[in-house]
């Protein structure tokens, strides 16, 4: 009730000042017992979507709520927390950043009282890069970022397997999408929060990727005892498609770029190359392919050249 009154008050203020009130309209989707996901759009950052292009989630344990990733902005983090409070009166007791990318960490401020946990390399990465990420986010989604500032994780993820309020949570540290990617496997429900190690029907992003490590990690992921996989981007997956599709894309990308570099193609020629029909259903395939050429091609190109003598 108090919240409703507050919202009404805010709206009233907005109406009188003529300001636009922004809302993500976050609504949690129940994917398993005690387990909820805020499913983002299969889009790129824009001032229309406010950066809501990512999946975040939470697990309601008997002793409190575990939050996995905090979204692209302070406003998103706050809306998340409000939405969680509508599901359970239990407090938020753990908050995790799966990796350093801006769409996963900029809601941190909304959970400052709880403190954020992440892998040590993720904390170091946020230390050096979060400021630049924030500048870029302000440029791409604009006013949605109002009040957002980097808030670094307070502590490293403590143990590999932790039982929290009856849920045995396995913290799985891998790499490939970035140099530190954290997945959370809930053995109580069989839900695997796969972070951005898996994408579904939305092209994978590669700004910090090590493709060989990523593919190797996907092969290990496929062996995990999960029933539902929550990709970092795309619909929750009960059919095991996300791992196969992410792997297929990455293997194709690596082979295609490597062969083209050896043939002497230019980056701009590469960016215009066709994408196989089997990827036609993947959102943003062309956009991410073009970005991936920028990320991955220079090193392959260097490897294709010979050391020149006089």
């Amino acid at each position, binding site marked *: 009730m108090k919240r409703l009154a507050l919202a009404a008050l805010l709206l009233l203020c907005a109406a009188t000042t003529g300001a636009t009130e922004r809302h993500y309209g976050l609504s949690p989707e129940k994917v398993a017992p005690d387990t909820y996901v805020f499913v983002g759009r299969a889009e790129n950052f824009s001032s229309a979507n406010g950066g809501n292009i990512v999946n975040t989630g939470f697990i309601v344990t008997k002793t409190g709520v575990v939050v996995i990733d905090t979204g692209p902005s302070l406003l998103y983090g706050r809306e998340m927390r409000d939405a969680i409070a509508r599901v359970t009166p239990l407090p938020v007791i753990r908050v995790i950043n799966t990796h350093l990318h801006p769409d996963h960490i900029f809601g941190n401020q909304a959970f400052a009282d709880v403190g954020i946990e992440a892998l040590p390399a993720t904390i170091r990465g946020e230390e050096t890069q979060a400021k630049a990420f924030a500048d870029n986010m302000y440029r791409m989604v604009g006013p949605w970022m109002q009040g957002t500032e980097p808030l670094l994780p307070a502590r490293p993820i403590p143990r590999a397997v932790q039982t929290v309020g009856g849920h045995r949570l396995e913290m799985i540290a891998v790499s490939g999408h970035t140099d530190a990617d954290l997945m959370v496997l809930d053995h109580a429900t069989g839900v695997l929060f796969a972070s951005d190690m898996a994408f579904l029907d939305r092209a994978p992003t590669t700004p910090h990727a090590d493709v060989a490590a990523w593919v190797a990690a996907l092969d290990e992921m496929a062996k995990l005892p999960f029933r539902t996989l929550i990709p970092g981007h795309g619909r929750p997956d009960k059919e095991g498609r996300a791992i196969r599709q992410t792997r297929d894309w990455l293997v194709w990308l690596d082979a295609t770029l490597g062969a083209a570099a050896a043939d002497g193609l*230019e980056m701009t020629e590469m960016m215009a190359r066709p994408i196989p029909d089997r990827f036609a259903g993947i959102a943003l395939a062309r956009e991410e392919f073009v970005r991936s050429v920028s990320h991955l091609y220079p090193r392959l190109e260097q490897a294709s050249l010979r050391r*020149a003598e006089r």
Partner: protein
Amino acid sequence: MRRLLLALLILLPAAAGRAEEMADPLDSPLWPEMRAQVLGTAPYVFDARVEVSAPASAENSAQLPVAVRVHGLAVREIVLFADYNPIPRILALRPLEAEPYVATRFKINMASPVRAAALAEDGLWHVGGVWVDAAGGGCTLPSAASADAAWQSRLGETASRSWPKGKTSRVRLQMIHPMDTGLAAGIPAFYLETSWIKAADGKVLAELDTFEPVSENPILTLEVRGRAGADGFRFEGRDNNGNQFQSRIREGGPG
């Protein structure tokens, strides 16, 4: 790429008009100044046959890939420039015995038209280009090399390769060089200035001026006539500090 198509559509009717009446198809307020800086009072025409390829948005402002190809014109010189860069000129190619083609990567400072002007045998500058969006800052950042003295022992170290392509060869060369713009405080301009690709007998096939905006550890791709042969093509270069570089460009990959 979509931008390029759009530019083509706009250009087709425009090309019929007279040069001095042509509006800039990229609608950049800086065009009159660019024209004065780069072309002086020489006559010009906007022409879609001068094809500039670059991604619609710069993923890395320090390394924007760009390629220029001129279709169906005999070309004496190609000048590549970006309106909104603090130093607009990126490079100038004189394709003596080479295709009117060059590709490189450069530092883009903010969203800008990226254009090429090709001086054709008809005495006219033919101008084409695309808009590129960028978060920016590429030009005013110090090079990675300027923060670490280790590169000095590797200055001029070069990797290259030649690929046969019909009667021509595509040659690519990358050199260790900081390419400092002089715009970062306390770091003087230091960049590769002139390069030549020559046949084994010393005949100059292409002459290239590069300017401050070309990216650190510059990578250059050109298409010259002939094949590399047993002795390879010869590369010779010189930077603005008087360092001289030379190496061979051969077919085949490393190892």
